[in-house]
């Protein structure tokens, strides 16, 4: 019960106050640079905290009690919350650790100086130092060789840039030429059409008995086509002339099973199970499937509820035509139905007729009057003279169309070039050659693809559709390291979550490749990408020098 002798300020003895590891005597945990600050004031043997807040006895330095607010009196113990301990780590790099790691039973310094001898921390500095030196040499070599490669990339990038500029100038010139040609062709077309129009009017005079209802219906395909073209432009978000699965997936009207997401399967249905469609296919295959849903969404179209049989058949076989007719029909008296009925029999023929018609003609721009009547399958038979004028007009139209299309194509190319020129390929165009490449990385479940400056995506290994993780957004590296990190944003939406995005962390290597992919946050992906473009020997050497300087 009566324990006596352990009354101690003996703890002092445990603390090695003066450290002899360096040549200059200084308190434990103090760097060489700071050593001069740890001198007793002559006379009263006192010492002032480095922040000047207090003056204490010199013997209170490293006495395992915190006297200074800044922790400067206890560089070698864990007593001060804000204290710092300096490991000399001879043979390796010196290191500063927080006081909280001094004497906590864990060897933090490679020379073991943060723990008292009792803990028995081995000195691993020379081993670590040698390994670090080897690593540094290896890194230096890598950066040196990588920088050579980077130079090639810079050269290529600059070449590409020049080519783009040249090409652009060339295209501008061609546009001017084509515009001129276009106005000529337009004049020819107008002339031919005037003749055609006149002839047809005459012919139509003679065909007065034609049913107004039928005539009215004639307009439908054109109307449809116009709508479809407009929609095509809207869907084609990346303006590449194709509507793709991902472009449809953003339209919630297409969520046919109403589960809150447009799946790839759902989107593909509208693309006739293809990955993408061009305008033609869109008009004939996609739009007929989409339109009813659009109308449904806009409340224009009520799906047939216990419909009359004829309507039902239309709904299933004809698809598109229905809503239009239905819409038009609704206000009309009921006997109209009876009148219209016979037309159903010719539905199939109608469709074929439509297709032929599209095949024969350039579909982009239709001029209503000139089109043969489509509604009743068999085009009207014109007299030979009228027929000739129509054919001439068609030719003129085709010629005009061709020029017009050429211009649009050129403009599209210019636009693409401009877009590319707008991308930040680095200070020396060193990243440019990566645009257009794609790098894949496989893990257990997915194949990830990074197409720099374009997109990042993933695809299940066991098949299934590709999911866009993000489209090129910008460089987001911090400070001087702007070109170390990229972001790809606005990927496919996550169920119940945000749109997917990806961060690309880039390091120097001799070959370009993706080395790791993870998903640290739900729907936020992280790619490790290495490429010679990130190698910069100069910067590397500079950083090395700074490090070495710190050590001294």
């Amino acid at each position, binding site marked *: 019960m009566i324990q006596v002798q352990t009354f101690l300020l003996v703890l002092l003895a445990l603390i090695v106050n003066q450290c002899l590891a360096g040549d200059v005597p200084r308190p434990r945990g103090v760097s060489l640079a700071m050593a001069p600050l740890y001198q007793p004031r002559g006379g009263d043997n006192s010492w002032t905290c480095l922040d000047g807040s207090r003056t204490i006895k010199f013997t209170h330095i490293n006495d395992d009690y915190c006297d200074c607010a800044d922790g400067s009196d206890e560089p070698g113990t864990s007593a001060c919350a804000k204290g710092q301990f300096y490991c000399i780590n001879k043979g390796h790099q010196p290191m500063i650790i927080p006081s*909280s790691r001094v004497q906590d039973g864990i060897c933090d310094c490679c020379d073991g100086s943060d723990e008292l001898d009792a803990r028995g921390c081995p000195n691993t500095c020379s081993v670590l130092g040698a390994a670090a030196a080897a690593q540094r040499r290896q890194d230096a070599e890598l950066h040196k060789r990588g920088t050579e490669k980077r130079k090639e990339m810079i050269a290529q990038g600059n070449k590409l840039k020049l080519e783009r500029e040249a090409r652009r100038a060339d295209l501008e010139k061609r546009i001017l030429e084509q515009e001129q040609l276009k106005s000529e062709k337009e004049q020819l077309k107008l002339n031919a059409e005037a003749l055609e129009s006149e002839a047809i009017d005459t012919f139509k005079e003679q065909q007065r008995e034609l049913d107004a209802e039928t005539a009215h219906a004639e307009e439908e395909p054109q109307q449809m086509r116009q709508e479809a073209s407009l929609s095509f432009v809207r869907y084609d978000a990346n303006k590449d002339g194709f509507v793709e699965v991902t472009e449809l997936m953003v339209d919630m009207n297409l969520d046919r099973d109403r589960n809150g997401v447009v799946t790839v399967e759902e989107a593909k249905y509208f693309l006739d199970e293809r990955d993408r469609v061009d305008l033609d296919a869109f008009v004939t295959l996609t739009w007929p499937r989409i339109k009813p849903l659009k109308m449904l969404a806009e409340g224009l179209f009520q799906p047939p509820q216990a419909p009359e049989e004829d309507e039902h058949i239309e709904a299933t076989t004809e698809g598109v035509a229905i809503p239009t007719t239905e819409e038009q029909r609704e206000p009309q008296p009921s006997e109209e139905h009876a009148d219209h009925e016979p037309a159903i029999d010719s539905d199939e023929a109608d469709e074929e007729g439509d297709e032929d018609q599209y095949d024969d003609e350039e579909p982009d721009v239709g001029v209503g009057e000139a089109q043969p009547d489509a509604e009743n399958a068999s085009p009207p038979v014109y007299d030979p003279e009228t027929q000739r004028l129509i054919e001439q007009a068609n030719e003129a139209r085709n010629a005009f169309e061709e020029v017009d299309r050429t211009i649009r194509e050129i403009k599209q190319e210019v636009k693409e070039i401009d877009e590319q020129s707008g991308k930040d390929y680095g200070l020396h165009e060193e990243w440019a050659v990566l645009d257009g490449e794609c790098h894949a990385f496989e893990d257990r479940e997915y194949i990830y693809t990074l197409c720099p400056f374009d997109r990042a995506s993933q695809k299940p290994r066991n098949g299934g559709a590709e999911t866009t993780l993000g489209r090129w957004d910008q460089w987001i590296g911090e400070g001087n390291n702007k070109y170390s990190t990229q972001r790809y944003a606005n990927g496919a939406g996550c169920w119940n979550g945000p749109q997917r995005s990806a961060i690309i962390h880039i390091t120097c290597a001799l070959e370009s490749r993706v080395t790791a992919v993870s998903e640290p946050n739900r729907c936020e992906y992280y790619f490790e990408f290495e490429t010679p473009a990130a190698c910069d020997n100069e910067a590397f050497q500079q950083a090395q020098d700074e490090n070495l300087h710190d050590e001294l």
Partner: protein
Amino acid sequence: MHLTLGIILAIIGSLMLTSVTGVDPNNFKTCEQSSFCRRSRKIQSSGSKYAIIPGTLNTYADSLTADLINKENHHQFTFKLEALVGSTFRLQIDEKQPLHPRYRVEHALKEEPKTARISVQKETDGEITISTDDHKNKAVIHGDPFRIDFYENDVLVVTANAKNWLYFEHLRQKPADAADGHADGEAGAGNAAADDDQQQAEAPKSPGEAIDDPGAWEENFKSHHDSKPNGPEAVALDFSFPEAEVLFGIPEHADNFVLRSTSGTDPYRLYNLDVFEYIVESKMALYGSVPVLYGHGPRRTAGVYWQNVAETWVDIYTAETNVVSSLVNFVSGSRKSPSPAAHFISESGIVDAFIVLGPKPIDVFKQYAALTGTHPLPQLFSLGYHQSRWNYNDERDVASVSSKFDEYDIPMDTMWLDIEYTDGKRYFTWDKFKFPEPLTMVKNLTELGRHLVVIIDPHVKRDTGYFFHNDCTERGYYVKTRDGNDYEGWCWPGSSSYPDFFNPVVRDYYAGQYALSKFNTVSENTMIWNDMNEPSVFNGPEVTAPKDLVHYGNWEHRDVHNLYGHMHLMGTFDGLEKRDPNQRPFILTRAHFAGSQRYAAIWTGDNTAEWSHLQHSIKMCLTEAVAGFSFCGADVGGFFGNPDSELLERWYQTATFLPFFRGHAHIDTKRREPWLFPERTRLVIRDALLKRYSYLPLWYTSFYELELKNEPVIRPLLTHYPADKECFAIDNQLLVQDRLLVRPVMQQGVSKVDVYFPAIDDKKNGDYWYDVDTYQRQERAGYESVPVTEYKIPVWQRGGSILPKKERQRRASTLMLHDPYTLIVCLDRQGKAEGTLYLDDEKSYDYRQGQYIYVNYEFAHNQLTNRFIGKPKYKSSSWIERVVIAGLSTVPQSATITVNGVSQQLEVLQQDHAVIVRKPGIKMNVDFAIKLNY
């Protein structure tokens, strides 16, 4: 932890995370939709008629028995009243000759309670008075109508059956025509009237046998059918608390500390359920059920522990202090409003009630803890900070999070792995791709003084390639359906079955799975999280198991539901103790019942990142603490949703002063480790965590004293200020023991908070309270508006107390073992203070062999002295580095420390409003005196 109704939600749609709307109450039963509840509640309008059968009374040395009769149907019951040591009576009522035995709860009590001797004081025709030998406690049993009055020192504190709401459905044969009868419709109440008429017309009228509720013999809820082979078997009883002004207890509900009246609402429900996105201010059932309820008034506190593990509803009657009732009282001349009362209603089992008589709040808490036990002293690390998330994805992720805490110099003790670490939700296995080398991962954490906790849920994947499933199938270890087949439900792994932990053989088998020879991919330092053990069954009625499943001993799930999680914990605790007999297990559980605190810590389940949920973390844990569960906390930041910086900061600060401290989040939330927020947030969080770690010696001492003295670690104000009515309902403040007063900031955008400093007498005198950051003294009782910055956690230390701290920062608490202590001495009006410190090896059971130091420090007459409680046998290398004294009127010149006649001078420094005695340097097991010199 988890989203449970995932499948259903997938259909409902995409609203959930963007705007957290909360649980759909329609997925859970109301009292009206529950046949036994509405039957039992009906009695509240008619009353019942039970009486003691004259001549059947027998008295024994410690108890009294008699037969009871229901005067309406003449069914007979036996009743037993037993006196227990510690001002407690136990009241049991069962059928005299039941058709078959009725379930009696096992394993909830920590041991068979010790009885106390009684003697008959008075016996007249209609009543008998017994008292305990010390004459402190007295019970008066009234024969007709049957009623028991319980007195503490001659003051009536509890009456059982005061309102004649005793209701006991005896077991009966199923009426022939009810066999294929219609089940109660889903709508319940709506159809009830019509069904009643129909059934009454059909049912044979054997007197007292008929129960005219359509749900009596089978019942439907949503698409689920309950076959109810035993028919009606409910038990219910009311308890009045004449001395009480407030009632509290019966966790777990996301509600205020003080229970609200249930008139016009559903009763509070106790039925362990996995509630997806629970809502606050609700009487709905949650994950745990602890049927202990206290009545508290300025003079007396008493309580009732209703020991029943079937579904239970509790109606609360509190005095309505509205104008009408006051007028009625005035006119009728009655000066007193009716006593607060509680009506316990359980679906099956027997009446088994423990009445604890106080007289003070701390007494009833201790009396209840004496019955069901306390959390044993935990390992110190488990009081540190836990970092969890559903899920840390792989070994690299775990290593990187751990190292980030070091990079930002933020202390952290434990990393947690949620279900995704497993191989396809097969517990005791690992996903070999994400976690190829779990032992190395564990070792890397251990080397930094850190721990790993992994989740093990009770559901078992039905997969013939899974050893656990095969063992359970072959050996018949699963809970069975009524037809004797293994029950199959749906949970994380998909199709799952549930081990029947009520079977001791199954528990043994389960415990054996934790052996390092079996679960050899973890170390003996890896601790366990038992979740989903209500049990959660995604496709079951109310997301749990059907009531007509069959358990060991042929008991229906109905009879034992609320104990399933408890039995699961018993297996786990046993397994961990066997795995390493000299290491204290740490287990976290979601489901719990009275007594589960002996095995596990709890958290408040799947809360939400909202200010209201932050506020409820304190309310809920205070209620749990007085119901035995001191080791309680809430998911910091909120499980669902994304907290903004301010909410996260305040949440960390609040959790700093709750016993269990874990950050956790749903898989769909954004990452929220402190360094992912702006620097200020990171620093505020770091500051809070450092404060937590500095108080670990106080937390540890408090937990030792919980085990030693049955006193809760955190307490509502009324515990120590029982006469101050103003503080009864305060549940945004808490006490840590009687040493700290904590009032965290739990509102958005405030620059000050109102703090209530409680009064010790009716003259509004209060204790001194010292701000723990500045030692500024609060001398007046009453409300005070206190300014706060973003860093401020408003906490005061009581004048008159001494508490231990460790003010050196470390990466993890385990690395602080040898660090020196700081004593904080806060003086009362007389210039005195005292307080305890407990220390040991922080890990093993050696303390039970006396390997500890337990010391009381006392400050009086300008001198600090110590007194060891028991021998200070533990060899500690710690020492006292400083003594902070607040409340001195003048600053002393110096101090003198004397040990064994040898004296030495110490420096005294002034800091803020306190003085510091510099570096006494004294070892922990040495007697000393420190005298201040003027």
